[in-house]
């Protein structure tokens, strides 16, 4: 999932301060817990109260979109709700915000969240951890399903550095050394020999920014 966190309310208030009628759009999609209709309702009240503190009256409407990064869902959900709306405040990730911008080019769309990383949630530990760097060259098949790019502080590709002590990382003694885990896992799987293979430095050309995938050539789509 995409992990996001709410911006400081002061910052959101500054962002929306030029506008009076604001639609807060939640996203039921991948973030955990989803910033859905309740988050939108609660944020509207917080901003209303924060606005009053600044002698500014806002009028909020709230809605939620099943997936804010889907242009069709965004267009169909929001179309009916934009009457009189000066700005949309999105509870989606950065992609969600831009999907709304794409669907409604004349609309002011503002982010309520900071988008942090692609991660996994460990509910018991109330923890969200980065698990994927979207590197475009997935190594998980060779590393026992543990990503050295996100889990190793140095993003090393060919085994641990000298800073691994008792399975912990020299950068943070609380953190496991990713390569220690990888080796333990490969050992268990009887696949330690995969480590014999030397990985060349990462090919940063694999993912050009902005990333783009053309699922079908446009000419074909048009036919």
């Amino acid at each position, binding site marked *: 999932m995409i992990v996001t966190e709410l911006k400081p309310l002061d910052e959101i208030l500054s962002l929306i301060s030029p506008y009076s009628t604001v639609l807060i759009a939640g996203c039921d999609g991948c973030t955990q817990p*989803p910033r859905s209709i309740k988050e939108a309702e609660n944020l509207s009240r917080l901003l209303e109260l924060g606005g009053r503190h600044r002698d500014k009256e806002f009028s909020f409407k709230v809605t939620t979109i099943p997936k804010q990064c889907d242009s069709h869902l965004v267009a169909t959900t929001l179309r009916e709700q934009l009457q009189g709306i000066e700005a949309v405040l999105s509870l989606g990730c950065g992609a969600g915000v831009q999907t709304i911008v794409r669907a409604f080019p004349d609309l002011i769309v503002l982010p309520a969240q900071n988008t942090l990383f692609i991660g996994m949630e460990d509910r018991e530990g109330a923890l969200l951890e980065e698990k994927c760097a979207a590197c475009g060259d997935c190594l998980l098949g060779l590393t026992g399903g543990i990503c050295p790019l996100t889990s190793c502080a140095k993003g090393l590709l060919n085994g641990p550095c000298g800073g691994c002590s008792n399975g912990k990382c020299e950068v943070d003694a609380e953190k496991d050394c990713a390569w220690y885990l990888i080796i333990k896992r490969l050992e268990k799987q009887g696949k330690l020999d995969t480590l014999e293979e030397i990985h060349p430095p990462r090919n940063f050309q694999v993912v050009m920014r902005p990333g783009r995938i053309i699922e079908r050539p446009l000419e074909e789509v048009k036919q």
Partner: protein
Amino acid sequence: MNQQAAEQATAIKLNEDYCASCSLCASLCPFEAIKRDPETRKMVLEIEKCQVCGICYSACPAKAIDIFYYDLISLTRYLENARREYDSDTLVVVCKGSSPDFDTAGNLFGVSKFIPLSVPCVGRLSEDIFLKAITSLGIKKIYVLACDENYCRFEKGSALNGRRVTALNLLLERLGFGEDVIVLKRNSAKVKADRDKCIRCGNCVFYCPYEAVKLDGTEPASFDLELCQGCGICVAMCPAMALELEGWEREYISALILELCSQMQQPKVLVFRCQWSTFPLLDDDLEPNVRFIDLPCAGRVDTFHVLQAFAQGVDGVMVVACPAEDCKLKEGSKEAYWGILQLKGKLDQIGLGERLHFCSIAPRYPQSFTQELRQFKEKLEITAEGG
């Protein structure tokens, strides 16, 4: 804390002078708070274990136990006054756990004009008060709405009440008061899910302390109502607002907030409290600026409603939970604490954090709630002057 607590008056007292050491209280106490001392052979009350269910008080044949809440004297006084006030000879008794208001109970029994009496667990009502009501207070019919036995927050309260009602009906019939003078029904408020609103996030599955929810594949979350204990944690945690708790529906609480706000004088203080954390007295006079919303568990305290109250112009919101170890619903107090802590962090950012107060209170020290409320009000006044 313990030393300070020990100096406070307790809600239950054991009077050694009257105690015949029959140990009936010990056999009935669901929390093992009363035991016979093996050496002295006397009954000993361990107040820290006591949950103030009142079962011992209602059962003691020697009247050796005093209780602060709903004792025979205050119940009698209430019924005498209510008999005139409501001009009715029908009494409807509900356990707070089975129904938050009397509309549900009235509908269940098919009565509209009655004397309402709401108690935290019907197990605390002794035979005496039923007999007194019928034989000397002019009440002709009593309807009791208890919780289902496996839903009773005090474990044995509902079952005990059931046995009493059976015995009392036999006795009253023989005494010539007619058949089935006391009518008992059972009810328990459980979760209601709107499958269309479910976004399959799994929050309810994770937070339910009773493993009553399942989320399989792409189907919406499904609830096993046999397992549901009605704590409302899932309702408070559902990001899609797809869940409701029977009797404490979101709209009902919202409407109640509006109504209470209109009654209050400034500075307005709204208290959301777990109905097992502190018990209102029958003759409690409400302070003009304080109102209460009793919830089935602190777990049902909803950030949505807290924010609604602030938006309605309430100056301070107090959330009262049971101490975590006393929570009748496993995780309710804990979840309420985290939820309120997070919300407080957000309110801090807009300068309102001081106006939200969370506290844990047990009914065993009746003064602790009043003290906490007074301190919060004083703090609010200082904040108001400062701002």
